[in-house]
Structure formats: C-alpha cells, structure tokens
C-alpha cells in the first residue's frame, strides 16, 4: 500500500536517503490529513447544526468563547507533531549534508544553459552525469554565470550553483538507470531547457566508461562527430536544425546562408565561413546576430580544435541534407 | 455636525478632538517614521557588518585612506547643529521668535558646512579614484595589497551619500521652518512642525554618530 502511494506521489527512490525523506513526507501527510478532516468536519458540522433556520427568531446566543481544555489541546497536539517533524527533518537533513569520506568527487558546473561534469580522473561530459551505483558520489557545484540549481528528483536532492562559490551535495545511487536532472533556479531564457540526465551504471561498467572517457570519438568522421557534439555539447538547447529560431539562430539557416553576408546588431556584417563559425563559438559575444540577444556562453576550453572542425563540418552538411 | 468649535485654534484639524491629541498623534507618527528611517539604514549597516566580518583586514587598512580630520570636523559641526536645532525649539517654546529664527539659520549654515566638507572629501576620492564598485581605480602603494577595497568604498559612498541626502532634505525643511517662523505661523502655542523636523534632524546626527567611528576610526 505504502509503496503504491509512494509511487503515486514521488518519482522512483534511487538514493540511500530517499526512502527516509519519503517516510517523513508520509508522516506529515497523514498527520495533515487527520488535522484537515478535523477542521473540515468541525466547520461543516457546526455550521449546519447551528444554522439559522427559516423563520427562526434572532436570539441571544451563547456567551461561551473559550475552553481551556480545548485550547491547550490545540497547542499541545500540533506542538508535538511539529516537534517530531522538526527533529526528523533535521536528522534526515544531516544525512544529506554529511558526505562519506570515500565518495567520488565530481565537479558540476552550471552555465546558461547546460551542465558540465568534470570527473576525478580527467575527462568531461556535458549534460550527462555518469555515476557508479552503490558508491557515494560527492558533487562540487558551482556556476559560471548566474544562479542555477541542480535537482535530481529521484535522489530527492537539490542544491543551488553559485558563481564564484562551491556548494556540496552527495548521493549514493541504489538502482541503475537513466534519470532526469532539472535546473530549478531561474536562469533566463533557456531555463526550462536546462535539463540533463544522470546515468547510474554498475561500478565495473563505470570504471570501464571512465577509462575510455574522451578517447572514444577519435575515429569518427568529422561530420558524424559534429552531429554527436551538437547534442552532447548542448548546442541543441538554443539552436535548432529545422530552421526555427530558438534562443539563437538555427543551424539550418546558417548553413543555407553559407558564403553570404550576416548582419550583426551593431550594423556590421561578415561573410559566413569557417572562421566566422569558429570565432562565434569561441567568442560569441563579439558579434551578435541582429534580432537575437547576446546570451551565448563561450566554449573556449570546452572544445578541442578537432571538435570545432567537426561542428563546422556538421553544420555544412545540413544544407546539403535539406536539399536532397 | 458642528464642523468646528468656534474658539478652536486655526491649526486644529476638524477630525481631532483637541490640540493635544493632534500634537501627540503627529509626534507618535514621527517616531514611527524614525523607525522606518532606522531600518532603511539598517540594511546598509548589515551590509557593512557582513563585509567587515568577511574582509576584516581590508576594512582596517582601507579606512586609513579616509581623512579623520574632516570626519571629526563634520562630527563637531553636526553636533553643534543639533544643539542649535534644539535651542530653536527651546526659543519658540519661550515664544522668542527672533532667537528661534536665528538658531534655525545657524542650523542651516552648519548643515551647509557639513555638506561642504563632505564635498571636499568626495572630490578628493574622485580625484584619486577611490570610487565605489567597478569605478574603483586607486592602486597606490598603501592600497595595492588590499583585497577588494571597492566594496569598502561602495559601502562608504552609499552610507555617507544616503546620510548626505538626509542632510540636504533636512536643509530644505529647515529653510521652510525659517520662513514659517519668520511669518509668525509657528508660536509657542503651535510649533509641531519644528518639533517634528527637529526629531528628524537629531536622527541625522544620531546616524552620523555611528558612521563616524565605523568608517573613520576603526574601519
């Protein structure tokens, strides 16, 4: 019964402390339901029982306006309930802030509007947090620009990412799978698209994955690598492939305009070519396409030369594809 | 309803029973207003305290860049102006219109002196680039080791600036008082506006009493 209810109310329980938090929820929930029914019952019963009936004379009513017994009960019962809630809340909270010593440390950086994950043995992923199961993982959170908040519903955990400061959260995932990550601190236009996935793997699988991290893409042809990077590096948050404008211009449009002039918001213009694409990825704020807001973060240091070439190659293919 | 008791004084508003109720109401509201003033400054004091606790050394060293003599001079000027303000009320209570106007004028002049000294201080800061926030550019030998001194100067300029704004507003109010008293609108029977503006003026003094040591003496 309780499991079914938990499933109805909550996403899966994946962290070690999730069940504790859900139990706290149900404790408050049941107490609240009881209190709520007392209130509603009292309200309905009294208002109907003492209703002013048709044709009844107006009369002097009772002068009763207090009852020490009732009032002290109203104080004491809620006081007991909230005391339990408080202590339980703090105990569970301490579990959530005391990080086990053997935790793997992963750096999480929020940036408008994607997440970067830096792993202890080097290597970086974007919008995909890969962790081993049954091993504590400590996340060191910060932000490059504005406030973000890193929320993994299945872990029941969440923490703000502050620019220029670290915040800590940790979890110990109990079930393998792919789960949602959301940004829950408003961070601008792309806030609702700033999602990511957490992938929980068997520890052995994780080890293997971690050792291959960064090397797997070496043999891919450039345009295929670019297609992969397009989602992996979160370009798709702001740039579509179908010609519609999101936060930034569509790749398709840029691709179709290859070799033509592009006008910027300060009135200048330039020809779209490899160099332009390269500089607009590395220094996006220097030339802002007319009609758009300059909100793109720099990818300096996040993309290697080969990866940049791959993106440019991918972009060029879009035009050809659409003509076929 | 009788709109007015025929022998009620002209300054008594019709919705009050008597002069005393009106006087007490104004004064009480004035103190409630003082509460809002104190809490406006409270925000800035909190910023000061928090940043001082984060950057204790920077605050102590940065305060040496301020001119204690000018600060002390301003303290003396402001305390004296508080005295003259109190004496102006005392004089009007004794129905001595001439002395009252004289004292108000003295208060006004002291306020002007205060702002003058403040102007000298500010212009020196502008010259050397000890400015708030991103405009800060002073990297002299006595400041180059400081960590984020722009925050100190931000808080300094905002607090003394808001205080200076109060002085300026007070000067406007005092000018109006001089005019009303001279015209004979305020007498020992009715001097509520002077009492209220007096309280305001003393508050300005009171805030400076804290600003002076916090910025000039202990950084």
């Amino acid at each position, binding site marked *: 019964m309780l499991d079914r209810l938990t499933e109805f109310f909550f996403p899966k329980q994946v962290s070690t402390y999730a069940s504790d938090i859900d139990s706290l929820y149900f404790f408050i929930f049941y107490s609240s339901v009881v209190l709520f029914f007392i209130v509603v019952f009292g*309200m309905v019963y009294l208002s109907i029982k003492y209703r002013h009936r048709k044709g009844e004379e107006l009369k002097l009513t009772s002068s009763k306006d207090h009852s020490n017994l009732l009032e002290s009960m109203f*104080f004491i019962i809620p006081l007991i309930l909230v005391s339990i809630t408080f202590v339980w*809340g703090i105990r569970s909270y301490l579990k959530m802030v005391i990080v086990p010593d053997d935790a793997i440390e992963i750096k999480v950086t929020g940036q408008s509007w994607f997440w970067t994950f830096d792993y202890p043995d080097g290597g970086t992923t974007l919008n995909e947090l890969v962790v081993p199961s049954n091993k504590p993982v400590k996340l060191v959170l910060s932000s490059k620009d504005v*406030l973000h908040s890193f929320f993994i*519903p299945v872990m029941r955990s*969440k923490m703000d990412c502050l620019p220029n400061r670290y915040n800590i959260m940790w979890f110990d995932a109990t079930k393998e799978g792919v789960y949602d990550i959301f940004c829950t601190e408003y961070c601008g236009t792309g806030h609702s698209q700033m999602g990511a996935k957490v992938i929980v793997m068997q520890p052995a699988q994780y080890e293997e994955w971690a050792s291959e991290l960064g090397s797997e893409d070496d043999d891919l042809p450039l345009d295929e690598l670019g297609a992969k990077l397009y989602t992996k590096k979160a370009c798709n948050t702001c740039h579509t492939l179908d010609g519609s404008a999101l936060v930034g211009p569509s790749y398709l449009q840029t691709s179709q305009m290859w070799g033509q002039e592009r006008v910027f918001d300060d009135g200048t213009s330039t020809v779209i070519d490899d160099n332009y694409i390269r500089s607009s990825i590395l220094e996006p704020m220097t030339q802002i396409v007319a009609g758009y807001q300059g909100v793109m973060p720099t990818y300096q240091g996040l993309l290697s030369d080969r990866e940049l070439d791959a993106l440019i190659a991918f972009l060029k293919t879009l035009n050809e594809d659409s003509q076929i | 309803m009788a709109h007015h008791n025929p022998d009620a004084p002209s300054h008594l508003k019709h919705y009050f029973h008597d002069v005393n109720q009106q006087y007490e109401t104004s004064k*009480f509201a004035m103190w409630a207003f003082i509460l809002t003033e104190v809490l406006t400054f409270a925000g800035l004091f909190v910023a000061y305290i928090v940043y001082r606790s984060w950057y204790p050394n920077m605050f102590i060293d940065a305060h040496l860049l301020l001119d204690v003599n000018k600060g002390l001079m301003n303290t003396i000027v402001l305390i004296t102006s508080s005295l003259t303000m109190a004496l102006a009320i005392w004089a009007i209570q004794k129905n001595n219109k001439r002395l009252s106007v004289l004292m108000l004028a003295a208060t006004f002049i002291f306020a002007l002196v205060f702002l003058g000294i403040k102007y000298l201080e500010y212009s020196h800061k502008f010259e050397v680039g000890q400015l708030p926030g*991103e405009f800060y550019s002073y990297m002299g030998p006595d400041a180059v080791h400081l960590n984020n001194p*722009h925050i100190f100067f931000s808080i300094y300029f905002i607090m003394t600036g808001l205080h200076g704004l109060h002085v300026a507003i007070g000067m406007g109010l005092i000018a109006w008082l001089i005019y009303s008293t001279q015209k004979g609108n305020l007498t020992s029977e009715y001097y509520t506006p002077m009492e209220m503006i007096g309280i305001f003026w003393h508050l300005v003094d009171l805030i400076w009493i804290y600003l002076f040591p916090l910025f000039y003496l202990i950084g």
Partner: protein
Amino acid sequence: MSENMKQNYLNHPKGIMSWLLTLDHKRIGLMYLVSGILFFFLGGLLALVMRFELAAPGNDIISNEIYNNAYTLHGAIMIFLFIIPAIPGALGNILLPLMVGAKDVAFPRLNLASFYIYSFGALFALYTIINGGVDTGWTFYTPYSTQSSSNVVPMTLGIFIIGFSSILTGLNFIATVHKMRIPGLTWYKLPLFVWALYGTSLVQITATPVLAITMVLLMLERFLGIGIFDPALGGDPVLYQHFFWFYSHPAVYIMILPAFGIISEIIPVHSRKKIWGYKFIAYSTLSIAFIGFLVWGHHMFTSGQSVFSQIVFSFITYFVGIPTGVKIFSWILTMYKGQVSFTPPMFYALAFLFLFTIGGLTGIFLGAVALDIHLHDTYFVVAHFHYVMQGGTIVAFLGGLHHWWPKSFGVMYNQTIANIAALGVFIGFNGTFFPQFLLGLRGMPRRYATYDEQFVELHSYSTFWSGILGISIFIAVMNLFWSFIKRNKVDPGSNPWGGMTLEWTHTSSPPHPHNFEEEPVLQHGPYDYDKVIVQKTYKK
C-alpha cells in the same frame, strides 16, 4: 435631518476634482479598490496566458522569453500592485476610521499622497510592460538581475516607489489606531479587523524600508557594480537573498494578516456569535507579525547558507504554524451555538477556512529542511503559496468585499449570483492548484515555459480548471460592480447582516462625508451577540 441623510461621501461634494483631491479616507479607499481590481485582472490575465501555454509541453502559444516576462509580471503585479495595497488600501481605508469611530484617518493628506505615490509607482510597472517586460522573476535574484537586459531598473524603481506608499499607509493606520479611537473604545473592544490592520501596519513600516534599500542596492549594482551582491565583483548572491527575504517573508504576513482580520469579522457576524478566543486572536496577530521576521531563511534552504542557519530557520518556522493553527480552530468554534446564515460572505469565509488550512498544512512540509530540499522551487511551492495567497488572502478579500459592499457603497448585489460565483471560485481554485502539489512532488520545477511529457496530464487538468477559476472571479467582481452601476440601492439605515461594530450601528450606508452624524457613543463590544440582539435590517 432627512436632507442630511441623503448626503453621503459618494455624492457630496461633487465634481471630478473633488475626487482627485479628496482627503476623505472612504473615497481614497474606493480609488485604491478600483485600481487594485484593475491590476488584479491584469495579473490574472497573465496567469491565464501562462496556464494555457502550459496546457501542453513545448512552446505552443508563447516563447520562452514571453513566458518568463509573463510570470515575472504576474508575480510582481499581484504582490506589489494588488495584494499588498488592496486590503489595507481599499477595505482598510474605508473601514478603519469607521470602526474606531474617527472622522478620518490621522493624516488624510498623507493618505492621499500614499495613493498617488502608489499610482506613480504603478506607472513604472506599466511602463515596464509596454517597454518589453522584465524577465527576472519577482524575486530579482542576483546576478541574473544585474545582467538581464530586460527592464529591471524601471520595475525595481516602481517597487521602490510603491514601498513608500505602503509605509505611509502603515504609519497612518498605526497613528489612527493609537490616537483616534473614541473614548471607551479600549484595545480589547476593537474589532479584530482593526487589530489585524494594526499588526499589518507594524510589519509594513518595519519591513518595507529594507525592501527599499535592497532595491536601491540592486539598482546601484547595475549602475556602478558596487560588488555587494554580484559575485563577479566579490559580492554574495546569498546575501541578496537575505536582504530580499527580510522584507518578503514578512510581506507574506502583510498579505495574510488583513485576511485573518476579515475572517474574524465575517464569521462572528454571520454566525451571530461572540468570537471564540478574542484575546488569543488579537495577540496571535501580533505574535505572527513578529515571528514572521525571524523565519525568512526557509526560502533559502537550497541556497547554500550555513547548516547552522538552516537548522535555526527550520526551528523558528514552526512557531508561526502553531498560533495560526489555533486561530483556525477559534474561527470554527465561533460557530458553536450560534445562528449561522449561509450568505455570500460566509461562503467565502468557509472557503477560506478550507483553502487556508491546506495552504497552512502544506507549509509544514516545506518547513522540514530535508523534505523542502526535494520540494524547493517545484510546483509544490507554487501550489502552497497560491493556497495561502489566493485561497487565503484573495478569497478573504472577496468575502470582505461582499460583507461590506452594502455598507461602503449603499448598494446590494445579487446574492444568488454571488453564491454561485463563490462556489465556482472554490472549485476552480482547487482544480487549478491541487494537481500542482502532485506535480511538485513528482519533480516538476517552477518557472518552466516548457516541460517533460511525464507532467502533461496534471498540467492540462490545472489549465482546464484555471479557466473556470478565472471566469468565476470575473463574475464575482462584475456582480459587485453591476449592483453599483444599476444603483440597486439599500436603505441608508440598512444593516443586512446584523453587524455590531460602529460602522454598522452608528452610520448610514453609504456613510456620511464626515463618517458620523454625531460622535458615536460605544454601547457594546464588537461581538456581544450574547448581550444584545441586533436586528438584520435590509430594505431597498
């Protein structure tokens, strides 16, 4: 005398200037009411636009940018231009001097100034809308608000200015309650609405200055980069949140305390029963106002403040819950052995008890730190504060309007339509916001213009019912104003609910320009239904 009876504040003196320059608290209250309702509709319209966008995932109707503007303006307008000024500014202004037997508030000129300052601030808000909106959220968290290219400065300037209006109203009410009561009207004989307004005013004058200085610092951060709130310049965004919530949490009590006051009036009058625990309700108003200043950090449980302050804030938060709970029980017990009439105001009061209890109880979930970390910034929070703000304050406000409408304006609305609209508000409200609790528990973050497929079902329910809610509120308000337009007048001596406070027993409906024909003499307490039978007199 009969000539005099026909003269009331609405028809005397005449002329547009007599309204624009009026010093009469009742006229100022009416002007507040009209402008407040207009902003209420504007904010409501924005809410409906958002709800319809959220009916399905993806950007169906509006883009991310417009959605972000819409929710920011919805929040800012509803809070700063409607809820905070509405009850004190409209109902408080009209009723407070009447309830204490005064001819006017202590400072009528200040009162008028307060209205014009409010209007001036509102102009900035309107300018913001025309000029392309603002997209930071009504909380203006740094550093987003220092970087955003939208109209942060006009909006914060507007809020800064409106803050002064709020302070002046508060000052005026405090002075009025302290000094303008008629002889014999001691503190314990004051109607509880007056106590509530008094508590509200104390919070207003204490908290609002901090908002003002916070807005100034935010603007300076944008102009000068002062480095107090901007982390790139050595500042601390969490400190901004402390500053902001030092005002904005007490502001919750600025919004809800007057609603408590209205309910404390409606229930005894319509139950014809002495109120249960008068002194408790009076003191709990003040204690809630005070404790409200100590708990702001529960808005910051995931911000990265110190563990120590997390624990302290969680602890103190529960102390607000207990007096509030006892208040709810007191209101219910007031009906015990009374004569309860099911009138539109009473329906609103009962709806308030139902909705506010849910709002209050869900607050307990959010006060438990460990649980709040999961629920923070999700739709659970959205649902919770709408249950408190709309289910609590706005429902009470509508109840108060229905209660005092014949008194204030001398006209009676269609009670059947009013009852139906009240039912529509109640059902529509629950339909809109109850699914949002579930959304939040399942992890739907707030302030999202688009969302995951998994949430679509609950979102579409919510949207469907929001339409019903919008229509019901519109009907409820229009029903009131229609009675005014149709001049469905009641006899000036009417006391349709049998109220016992001075505004019902000692002045006409609508009241005389100077409130009372002659200074009222207090004959009984505000809720002495056990000592005096006050007849319900309602004649057309």
